[in-house]
């Protein structure tokens, strides 16, 4: 390990167990995200990456274990009460509100905030995502895939999260758009955002992340600095296709 983290982590997940009915989907995982870090969770389809994020966000209830943000226990609160505490999930498949305009989608992202602060945040998002400004009044369902992903990310940022969780932001996008999305992630990181990133595109994810966890069928099998994992033989064989 190159550096030792001394400060308390922003997010600490401890011994998390999640079930879908009788199926034990997450079998006791623990992970940490420190402030200003990009941490990525990689692994094959069905490893439990999205389940982990959905549980942290409060959409799923863990049977055992804790999720703490800044030392405050979150689990059991439910998603709508977790958002105001500073945690935002940009879900898999984008799930923007197709029948609302771009602007309305962004406003919904700030639902739990003081309405007086929304215009400033809107301007900020339009600066970061000029394409969304151009399409401000357009119905979101008519946007292209890449634009919808940008909208989903901007919407998640509208709650001013301390931790932004991105679930498969590159899914279903053309390679050039995938690069754009990862450029945005890097920019967000440079401006001080803390990000927990779930990706199937392990190569790209490891390239932008500080640290990474590798998940396999509900357990974490490897962890470490992203650069180390990027050059790890086992990771390369399993996830990087070389």
């Amino acid at each position, binding site marked *: 390990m190159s550096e030792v983290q001394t400060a308390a982590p922003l997010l600490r997940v401890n011994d998390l167990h999640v079930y879908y009915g009788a199926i034990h989907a997450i079998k006791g995982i623990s992970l940490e995200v420190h402030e200003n870090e990009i941490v990525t969770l990689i692994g094959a389809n069905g490893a439990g990456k999205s389940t982990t994020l959905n549980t942290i*966000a*409060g*959409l799923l209830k863990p049977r055992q274990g804790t999720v703490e943000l800044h030392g405050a226990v979150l689990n059991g609160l*439910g*998603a*709508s*009460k977790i*958002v*105001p505490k500073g945690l*935002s*999930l940009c*879900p898999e*498949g984008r*799930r*923007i*509100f*197709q*029948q*609302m305009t771009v602007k*309305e989608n962004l*406003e*919904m*992202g700030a*639902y*739990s905030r003081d*309405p007086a602060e929304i215009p400033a945040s809107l301007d900020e998002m339009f600066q970061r995502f000029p394409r969304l400004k151009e399409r401000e009044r357009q119905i979101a*369902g008519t946007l292209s*895939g890449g634009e919808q992903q940008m909208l989903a990310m901007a*919407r*998640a940022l509208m*709650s001013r999260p301390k931790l932004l969780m991105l679930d498969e932001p590159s899914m*279903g996008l053309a390679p050039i758009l995938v690069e754009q999305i990862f450029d945005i992630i890097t920019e967000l990181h440079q401006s001080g955002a803390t990000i927990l990133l779930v990706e199937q595109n392990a190569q790209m994810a490891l390239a932008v992340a500080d640290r990474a966890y590798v998940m396999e069928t509900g357990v974490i099998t490897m962890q470490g600095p992203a650069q180390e994992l990027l050059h790890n033989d086992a990771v390369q064989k399993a996830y990087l296709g070389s």
Partner: protein
Amino acid sequence: MIFLDNLMNGLSLGSIYAIIALGYTMVYGIAKMLNFAHGDVIMVGAYIAFCGLQYWGLPPIVAILAAMVVCTVLGITIEGLAYRPLRQAASLAVLITAIGMSYLLQNVALMIWGANPKSFPRTFINSSILHIGGLNVSSATIYTILANVVIMIALTLFTAKTKMGKAMRCVSEDRGAAELMGINVNRTISVTFAIGSALAAIAGVLLCSSYPILQPTTGSMPGIKAFTAAVFGGIGSIPGAMLGGVLLGVIEIFGKAYISTELGDAIVFAVLIVVLLVKPSGLLGKPVREKV
């Protein structure tokens, strides 16, 4: 002239269906369930207004407001006690619970008010017949159509402009994503039931102002027809409920006037079947979109 008389009657009946259908369609759109007890909430609203006018000597407006308050509380209570615990259950379980709730309300009404039909008192709503040109129009017809228009405009503005209205649209489209925005889904569903039930109270008073016989089953048939209207217009769609309700009322009255009095109801449901064969999502309903 008879044609115009029939048209006015059809619009009036259709407006009542439309106001009831709004309750069905909003609850369906947001909670994804068919609240078959909705028709019986109308009946309760009518009884409360009846008691207010007949026994408590309330002015009509106050009696209507009392009915709205009672129905609002009733709607929220039904949702909280009967439907909320089943949020994760199979939709069939919820449907059967709703049917059970419908019978429960009817039987409680039977206990309280008895089986004998009550005659709904005259109020300002149905006190006069207006002569417009050669037309004889009951004031109830005018009030009913007016109420429908006002409610439609108010609801459209509410869902388009207000924070709660927008939250409802979000929950309707994607409940999980709505939660991720910080929207309290349970509270949103409660408010939906509250609005639907308050509208049911208004519908109950309007219904009994035009057809002044009140008994515990008064809400059943209008409830079923309004549900039909909601499906006809495209369930989940507010303008669809309006259009479906008004069209259904007009079709029913014309069917009874020009085709067959006995077959009036059959014609209504036959129209529904034809529409659903041609356009399964209803007149204004959006076909279910594939998620990309």
